[in-house]
């Protein structure tokens, strides 16, 4: 930023005086922390004070600019949150489809503005509830969906043309999205009217979340199929949510989350372009992102500001995109599950509130706030309501949404935004040099970088070098207990029975024909989406569809890197 020469000169004089005074005071402190140890939760060093000197090389137009103007550091929307708050989108799913549908209606009644689906592990991994691999997991971490019948129960009474739904689904994304499309068709809603998001980001699965099915290359192929199908037929759908959330939860630093997520995004763009069916600006505007809001308040805000700037530059300069909507990084945020503590669980309400505030100040478009009991179980009605109210209080009472990007121009916030951007590009270029993200994953590079960070952090917690309240400081001897939401083991048998009933009643010849058509399409390298939609309509199950993929493309096993 331009500062007059006199300003910098007087700043330099004042700094000298301030530094002397600091030195004098600090020397008297008995157990002072060495300067180098003051850092963010990700170990990024932080200075005691930031001044004009820290941002004097910035250019207002190039680096900061206006909301809705390149490079979008200050946000994509020209009206900020005055036009519309971020979407209050609570991630939820539990037990069977009917139970989850009930929770969805409760949340909508309480003022939630978008839906977000948590599936159980068998669904996430492409197994039916009756698979031996699924034993003990049904409905435990989310909702169990085996066939379109379950899906219709899940979406009962939900206006699919009015509310957007996000689905955290990765390897079987094609099958679950096909169910959504089929459900819309059954309700008489055309595909160009439905809106929502499938997470559908496999690269971060290999890196972090580990819901795995096929090897990286065919996984990316299936994703590109959805991007092409969505662009042509479901134009309001975000066919991918390029996710840093899980990368962070697996133990990454904020910079690693930023870098690996954006480099994943670039990999997807490059694959679609390689197929030569779509122009970058026909699909660029539908790419969406998903970040974590961890506990280090300013680091998170700066991460989000840096993310928008990096993506805008990548789309414009690297991929020569011309439509400014392709330059926008639109993202959802979730507060950090891994920052919550099992000890003194009510403190989690406070953690979630400050994390949510950082996401709002970082300009998120959509937000999930964790419930205080999520360390232990899926959230109870009581806990999820506090979490939703937390967003509503931030929106309606704090004034944080009144003006756009209120921290812009702060010496500290701008300097930290720049530093994080720089470090992220260093990682991105390193991965470019390795031959891209698929190649880097095959080498184990991002996985091991994250393992290093996770291990270091755990050691820092164990030695109380970094503090977690209630864990390694202010520990209470009394045990606080909270009510747990329990998922009854018996729902597994009920779900298996439901699936058996569907198999009995469906036209099995028609179902098998759909699966063999899908298999032929996979072998020929055709887009699988139209075949998936036919298959789910014929009541083929999630596993039957995924078994086709596993058969044609092979199965990927976690190499167990640590």
């Amino acid at each position, binding site marked *: 930023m331009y500062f007059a020469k006199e300003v910098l000169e007087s700043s330099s004089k004042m700094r000298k005086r301030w530094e002397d005074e600091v030195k004098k005071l600090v020397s008297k402190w008995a157990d002072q922390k060495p300067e180098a140890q003051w850092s963010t939760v990700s170990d990024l060093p932080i200075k005691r004070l930031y001044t004009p000197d820290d941002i004097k090389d910035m250019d207002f137009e190039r680096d900061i600019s206006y909301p809705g103007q390149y490079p979008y550091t200050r946000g994509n929307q020209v009206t900020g949150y005055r036009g519309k708050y971020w979407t209050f989108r609570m991630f939820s799913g539990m037990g069977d489809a009917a139970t989850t549908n009930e929770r969805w209606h409760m949340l909508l009644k309480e003022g939630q503005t978008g839906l977000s689906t948590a599936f159980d*592990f*068998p669904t*996430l*991994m492409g*197994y039916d509830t009756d698979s*031996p*691999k*699924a*034993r*003990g*997991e049904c409905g*435990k*971490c989310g909702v169990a969906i085996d066939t379109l019948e379950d899906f219709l129960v899940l979406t009962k009474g939900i206006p699919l043309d009015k509310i957007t739904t996000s689905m955290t689904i990765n390897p079987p994304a094609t099958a679950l999205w096909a169910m959504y499309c089929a459900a819309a068709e059954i309700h008489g809603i055309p595909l160009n009217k439905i809106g929502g998001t499938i997470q559908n980001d496999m690269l971060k*699965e290999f890196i972090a*979340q*580990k*819901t*795995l099915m096929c090897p990286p290359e065919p996984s990316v192929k299936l994703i590109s199929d959805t991007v092409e199908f969505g662009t042509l037929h479901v134009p309001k759908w975000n066919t991918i949510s390029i996710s840093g959330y899980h990368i962070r*939860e*697996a*133990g990454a630093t904020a910079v690693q989350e930023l870098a690996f997520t954006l480099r994943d995004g670039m990999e997807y763009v490059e694959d679609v372009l390689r197929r030569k069916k779509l122009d970058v600006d026909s699909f660029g505007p539908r790419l969406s992102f998903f970040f974590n809001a961890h506990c280090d308040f300013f680091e998170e805000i700066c991460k989000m500001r840096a993310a928008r700037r990096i993506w805008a530059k990548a789309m414009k300069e690297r991929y020569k995109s011309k439509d400014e909507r392709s330059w926008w990084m639109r993202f959802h945020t979730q507060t950090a599950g*891994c920052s919550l*503590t*099992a*000890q003194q669980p009510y403190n989690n309400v406070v953690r979630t509130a400050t994390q949510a505030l950082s996401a709002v100040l970082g300009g998120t478009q959509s937000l999930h706030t964790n419930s205080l009991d999520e*360390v*232990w*179980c899926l959230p109870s009605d009581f806990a999820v309501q506090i979490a939703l109210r937390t967003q509503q209080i931030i929106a309606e009472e704090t004034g944080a949404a009144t003006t756009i990007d209120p921290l812009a121009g702060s010496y500290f916030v701008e300097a930290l935004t720049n530093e994080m951007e720089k470090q992220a590009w260093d990682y991105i270029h390193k991965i470019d040099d390795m031959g891209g993200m698929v190649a880097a994953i095959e080498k184990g590079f991002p996985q091991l970088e994250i*393992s290093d960070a*996770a*291990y270091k952090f*755990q*050691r820092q917690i*164990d030695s109380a070098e970094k503090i977690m309240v209630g*864990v390694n400081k202010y520990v209470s001897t009394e045990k606080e207990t909270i009510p*747990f939401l329990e*998922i009854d*083991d018996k729902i597994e048998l009920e779900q298996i029975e439901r699936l058996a009933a569907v198999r009995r009643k469906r036209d099995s010849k028609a179902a098998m024909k759909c699966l063999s058509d899908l298999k032929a399409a996979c072998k020929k390298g055709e887009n699988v989406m139209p075949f998936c939609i036919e298959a789910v309509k014929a009541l083929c199950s999630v596993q039957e569809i995924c078994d086709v993929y596993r058969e044609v493309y092979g199965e990927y*096993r*976690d*190499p*167990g*890197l*640590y």
Partner: protein
Amino acid sequence: MSDRKLRVMVAKPGLDGHDRGARVLARCFRDAGYEVIYTGCHQTPEQIVSAAVQEDVDLLGLSCLSGAHRYLYPAVTKLLKDKGADDIMVIGGGIIPEQDFQLLYDAGLKAIFVPGATLDTIVTWINTNVKPRA
């Protein structure tokens, strides 16, 4: 009495992909001087037990955060017993509510570590309680 290194297997049964704790522990055990075998995610109880027997481990540590520990941990200990390998000590960790502890101890687990256990606590417990099998 053998003074060879302890052989420790860290295993993730079931479909759960939350492997941060398992990976951190695998590193910690390596730093503690054990020989470490980490299975990676998504192992069936059968795969885990056959690997533990084949690798001749002294200790098997199970990690599951999906809520399926009530089924999976006893399935592992039962299979070990069926194979006559129940001298392999089994411990478990993860998101395990206190009300499930007894069920897991009854199934043969020797210790359960939940949030708040430090790495050093776990290593100290192992050094005190686990000896290389004859």
